[in-house]
């Protein structure tokens, strides 16, 4: 690829790439996000490529060649979001989305849908006997507004030229040639862009604070340490449209006068790291990163730092400490990151989704951006919809969309027709929403009012068989494991809370324990050093508030109404089914089973450990749980 030296070079290259894209008779996009790769999409890609070659079909896997008519574009795309239905394959301009594609389907796809215009009914998404031909008609997509994720699934994630063919880097070039840093900060502030990492702090304000610092060495840091279990929005952006995020960082760099950017990515996201590295290399090669970009006088470069498995590194000061090669422990603030961040210099720290919003604002304007979402939270938000819901996946909706629309219209309701019990939002720092909140608009401020938070955007749907006490134990266990140990309230407090919760799920809790939980929760929230500690008790406080009865059932009646807590179950033998073979008696580690051969056996509940060894062993399925 030739290095671009001027804006004319850039425009010319864009025009050629656009021409090439338009001349592609068919574009075959195979989803190569983590989910579909796990389902074998890379093998499908290879098979189609190989088969096309065998048949002498003119296949282009990148836009680097001369544009020519009647060629077929074959692309590895980013995540479509509909992970449950993967591997996904999309064919443009037919607009058809094939689901659960297998290697055996490749020949038929080539013959009918690539060479011809026939649609293979068997591979279409179907709901209630209706087959959906076009992707955007599928209910999962119909109610979404995919802007930040627009290219995810529709573009070759590794091809910088394809990004440029779709107006990529135009916002950056517009910024460095026609705007000042001050104007850009103001634009982002006026657009009302709030940090998508959870806090919702106005991004433009942060930029302006860094821009105004006396110190001239400044840094841009992108937080890609998406540690919240159940969240994968940032992973999908990094994998599916890495250039958009880089462009956002580059604009921020120019706006605040920084020359270096760092991306901190979780070690658990190897694919994101490799896609980002490819994207950075390509951007350097083509001259969009480096010294004196397109002759503008602005120089900027980006480095990747891989995390090493510490949730606390999602916190700003811990993250910068980790980039510096230290233990990732938060520090007391002030000074804030905007004053003394990475290497003690003023630093803009935003998350992946926040940066990916920036090019959209610069390209389409403040008014356009503010027309989306709600007054205090403009724009869209990506959510990871998971748990006991029919359509799990990655979605993007305007801020202020109600929970009902998300779960029932997009998510297709609770799995197996069960009853919705709760929606956990915002991961281990967030809270639970219940049926009464179904019409609550999802935005920063509305959620705060009911004791939850948008967090990074994980939405975990829980059905009636989920025990909320167990869920809060699960989150407390997570936070306790991840507490860095620097401050006492978090290190000791979360440990005590976990002990209490473990007691309760084992049936050994008392009413005093509930009060103790409440007291600990309040103390930790008020006194912990960083965000992790301050929000650690949220899942407990919010379940105590909305599911008090369930806690009471555990401590007073020693019962788990959801039937989830192992220790509170009773295991019994159904006398009608038991043949008296004595297998269970021989297996029981506690000697809790007795009986006479060929007559029904009994379990003595006072001795039973509820280990379940007998349950799976019984050849007659006579042993049951209640």
């Amino acid at each position, binding site marked *: 690829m030739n290095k671009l030296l001027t804006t004319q070079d850039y425009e010319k290259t864009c025009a050629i790439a656009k021409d090439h894209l338009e001349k592609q008779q068919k574009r075959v996009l195979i989803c190569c996000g*983590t*989910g579909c*790769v*796990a*389902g074998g999409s890379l093998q499908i890609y290879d098979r189609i490529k190989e088969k096309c070659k065998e048949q002498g079909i003119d296949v282009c896997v990148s836009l680097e060649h001369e544009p020519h008519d009647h060629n077929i574009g074959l692309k590895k795309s980013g995540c479509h979001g*509909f*992970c*449950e239905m*993967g591997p996904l394959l999309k064919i443009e301009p037919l607009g058809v989305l094939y689901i659960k594609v297998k290697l055996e389907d490749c020949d038929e796809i080539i013959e009918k849908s690539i060479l011809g215009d026939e649609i293979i009914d068997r591979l279409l998404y179907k709901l209630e006997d209706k087959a959906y031909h076009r992707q955007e008609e599928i209910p999962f997509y119909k109610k979404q507004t995919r802007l930040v994720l627009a290219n995810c699934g529709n573009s070759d994630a590794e091809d910088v030229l394809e990004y440029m063919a779709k107006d990529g880097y135009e916002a950056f070039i517009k910024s460095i040639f026609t705007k000042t840093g001050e104007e850009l900060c103001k634009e982002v502030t006026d657009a009302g862009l709030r940090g998508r990492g959870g806090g919702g702090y106005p991004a433009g304000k942060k930029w302006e604070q860094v821009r105004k610092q006396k110190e001239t060495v400044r840094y841009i840091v992108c937080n890609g340490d*998406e*540690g*919240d*279990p*159940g*969240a*994968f929005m940032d*992973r999908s952006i990094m994998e599916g449209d890495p250039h958009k995020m880089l462009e956002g960082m580059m604009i921020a760099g120019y706006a605040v006068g920084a020359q270096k950017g760092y991306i901190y990515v*979780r*070690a*658990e*996201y*190897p694919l994101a790291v490799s896609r980002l590295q490819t994207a950075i290399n390509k951007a350097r090669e083509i001259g969009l990163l480096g010294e004196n970009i397109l002759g503008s006088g602005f120089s900027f470069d980006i480095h990747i*730092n*891989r*995390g*090493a*498995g*510490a*949730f606390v590194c999602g916190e700003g000061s811990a993250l910068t400490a*980790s*980039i*510096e*090669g*230290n*233990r*990732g*422990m938060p520090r007391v603030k002030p000074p804030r990151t905007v004053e003394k961040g990475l290497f003690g210099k003023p630093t803009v720290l935003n998350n992946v989704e926040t940066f990916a919003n920036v090019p959209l604002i610069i390209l389409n304007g403040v008014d356009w951006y503010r027309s989306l979402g709600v007054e205090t939270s403009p724009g869209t938000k990506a959510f*990871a919809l*998971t*748990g*006991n819901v029919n359509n*799990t*996946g*990655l979605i993007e909706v305007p801020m202020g969309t109600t929970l009902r629309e998300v779960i029932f219209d997009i998510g297709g309701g609770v799995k197996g027709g069960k009853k919705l019990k709760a929606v*956990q939002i915002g*991961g281990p720092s967030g809270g639970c929403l219940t049926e009464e909140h179904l019409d609550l608009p999802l935005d920063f401020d509305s959620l705060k009012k009911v004791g939850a938070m948008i967090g990074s955007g*994980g939405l*975990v749907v*829980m059905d009636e068989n*989920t025990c909320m006490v167990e*869920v809060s134990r*699960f*989150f407390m266990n*997570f936070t306790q*494991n*991840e507490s*860095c140990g620097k401050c006492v309230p978090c290190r000791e407090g979360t440990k005590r809370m976990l002990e209490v919760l473990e007691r309760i799920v084992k049936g050994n809790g008392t009413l005093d324990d509930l009060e103790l939980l409440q007291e600990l929760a309040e103390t930790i929230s008020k006194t912990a050093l960083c965000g992790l500690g301050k929000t650690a008790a949220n899942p407990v406080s919010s379940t105590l508030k909305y599911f008090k009865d369930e806690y009471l059932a555990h401590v007073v009646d020693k019962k788990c109404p959801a039937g989830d807590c192992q220790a509170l179950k009773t295991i019994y033998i159904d006398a009608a089914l038991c043949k008296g073979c004595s297998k269970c008696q021989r297996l029981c580690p506690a000697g809790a089973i007795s009986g006479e051969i060929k007559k029904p056996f009994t379990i003595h509940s006072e001795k039973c450990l509820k280990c379940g060894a007998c349950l799976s062993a019984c050849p007659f399925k006579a042993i049951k749980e209640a």
Partner: protein
Amino acid sequence: MENKIDYEKADEILSSYGKNSCYLIAIMQDIQSEYKYLPVEILEHVAHELDVSVAKVYSVATFYENFSLEPKGKHVIRICDGTACHVRKSIPILEKLRSELGLSDKKHTTDNMEFTLETVSCLGACGLAPVLTLDEVVHPAMTPEKAVTLLNDVRKEDAAHE
């Protein structure tokens, strides 16, 4: 048993980062992928070469979950216990594999050094929950039975190679 530590690879890695101590984490990541764990001798060598204290290197190595001071098994299985996998019942899979391999929450690696079984907080593949990774390859929609089949497949493959 290997009793001689090969410092050559570590030196190559150190030089590739210009022996700059702010790359300590990246250096140790590379060392771990080369040696499969962080041998104490190598950590001391790293401290010496970067001109930082051994305590500093050790403190960073023990802080992060991904670093291991113990050698791991030939195959590493990581069961995701993120929220989505947890509510779709990942724990029974963990328990099944533990009993198959004779491991526990204290013992993660089999005596014959064949398998290491760990949990991981979230792999971000929540749409396919519950998932596990076997040697970095993600396996979707697992059940205890499927996991055991997977285990036996690996054993069979290894036996065929011997």
